[in-house]
């Protein structure tokens, strides 16, 4: 991972290490060091001497009312504020503790005791109560971003099994991303109580099953409403759970979708060093190398929609940066006619990728006196008018002297 390999895993009970062994083993195979603890262990702590002991946090403890030791909701939120990632799984019996953590991330779970139900797409289960939902991952139900959900083709994917609680997010706020959602026929309600008109407001495609938050500091929080989605039983029952959870965890723990930029240069065309101040109407080029992390190393990033803004209160110039195979992005433009203090701004937000924010400040000066043309052609009438006035004055003077 791009940000460290220490993972703290909080479990309801230590027997879960066996029932979720396939998921944990594939994390270990990717190089993570997993530290398993029971969620109520009194020796729990995230930090030691002011430094974080872990880089990522997995909370597979939906029923725990209070974490043990020094871990609690504020400390987990600080953990996220420092840029670390959290994978949280809930259940129909999700406790207030997990609810609070999720709601601080913009995710609202449904009431306790409710399940995600879908009478048209139920998966195999021991009890025929339709609480196990089988979602085939198409455009309607799964986010089509290979950065988050993997690049396996739609035709190769099997349905995903899910049994748990629904949640809602405010889509369109730029930070919350819905990864897996229900069909139009999906809804959330308590299956053991009669349905009333006010039973639920979560239905259809608004039933979110798995969602994520990429915070402004690029910390990633993935919340799934079903902890059983990660269980060995579901992995082995002819479903795509193993692949999807692996891909989502790769994104969550910053193995994918991480960008960095370096080698930012800008200069006049034909030179190599930038002057202290650019001049109005100079031709300048701006170049930056953008790389992304692919799990093991940094490779050049390829995208056609990275934009550069040359801004002084308002963007005077906004162009696309042209990519090259080595990840070098360049743009060439003419400095506008207005002088002042500008900044080169690159703000790149793409779903699933960390935000890229580059800002360089640069002054632009007006023409010096010797950089103008000495006589401006458009001003010829004014020049002639002045001269002709003076000439006329002298001519009139002569005439006035010599007429009676």
């Amino acid at each position: 991972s791009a940000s460290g390999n220490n993972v703290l895993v909080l479990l309801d009970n230590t027997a879960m290490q066996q029932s979720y062994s396939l998921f944990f083993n594939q994390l270990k195979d990717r190089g993570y060091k997993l530290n398993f603890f029971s969620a109520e262990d009194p020796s729990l702590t995230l930090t030691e001497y002011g430094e974080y002991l872990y880089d990522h946090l997995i909370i597979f403890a939906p029923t725990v009312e209070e974490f043990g030791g020094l871990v609690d909701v504020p400390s987990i939120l600080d953990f996220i504020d420092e840029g670390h990632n959290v994978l949280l799984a809930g259940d129909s019996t999700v406790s207030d503790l997990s609810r609070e953590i999720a709601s601080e991330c913009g995710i609202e779970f449904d009431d306790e005791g409710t399940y995600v139900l879908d009478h048209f797409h139920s998966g195999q289960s021991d009890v025929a109560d339709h609480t196990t939902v089988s979602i085939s991952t198409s455009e309607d139900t799964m986010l089509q971003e290979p950065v988050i959900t993997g690049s396996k083709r739609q035709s190769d994917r099997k349905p995903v099994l899910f049994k748990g609680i629904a949640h809602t997010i405010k889509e369109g706020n730029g930070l919350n991303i819905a990864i897996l959602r229900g069909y139009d026929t999906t809804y959330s309600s308590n299956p053991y109580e009669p349905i009333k008109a006010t039973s639920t407001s979560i239905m259809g495609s608004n039933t979110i099953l798995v969602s994520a938050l990429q915070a402004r500091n690029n910390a990633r929080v993935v919340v799934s409403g079903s902890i059983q989605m990660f269980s060995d039983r579901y992995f082995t029952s002819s479903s795509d759970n193993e692949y999807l959870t692996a891909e989502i965890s790769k994104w969550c723990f910053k193995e994918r979708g991480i960008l960095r930029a370096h080698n930012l240069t800008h200069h006049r065309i034909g030179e190599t060093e930038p002057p202290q101040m650019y001049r109005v109407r100079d031709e300048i080029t701006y170049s930056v190398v953008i790389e992304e992390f692919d799990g093991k190393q940094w490779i050049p990033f390829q995208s056609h929609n990275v934009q550069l803004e040359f801004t002084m209160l308002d963007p005077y110039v906004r162009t696309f940066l042209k990519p090259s195979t080595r990840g070098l992005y360049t743009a060439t433009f003419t400095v506008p006619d207005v002088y002042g203090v500008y900044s080169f701004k690159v703000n790149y937000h793409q779903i699933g990728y960390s935000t890229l924010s580059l800002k360089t400040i640069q002054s632009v000066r007006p023409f010096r006196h010797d950089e103008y043309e000495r006589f401006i052609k458009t001003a010829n009438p004014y020049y002639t008018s002045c001269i002709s006035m003076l000439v006329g004055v002298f001519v009139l003077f002569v005439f006035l002297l010599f007429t009676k």
Partner: protein
Amino acid sequence: MTDIRKLSIEIYKKVSNDYVQTTPKKLKLIDVYLFYVALTGVIQLLYAIRVGSFPFNSFLSGFISTIGSFVLTVSLRMHLNPKNAEKERVPYRPERAIADWLFCNIIFHFTLFSFLG
């Protein structure tokens, strides 16, 4: 309607005849010069409106040269008009007036040339 038209034509004819006959030659000369200055000013203004006033300092310089010359020459005409002497409205001092007018024009154009750019 036609009465007003006839009346205005009559007035125009009387004024122009009186002008041509009663004004001295010097004043007519100055009047021609004034017309020339006004024409230059109007031409410049139209040019600036059409093409834009890009070197604004040059536009101001050229335009104000016409306006200033116009004003100075009008005051010269007032000083040179013998009728004003009779009515004692403006003192009739021809030599001093011409000298003043020339001097003012030179200083005025000196400033304008430095602003012309």
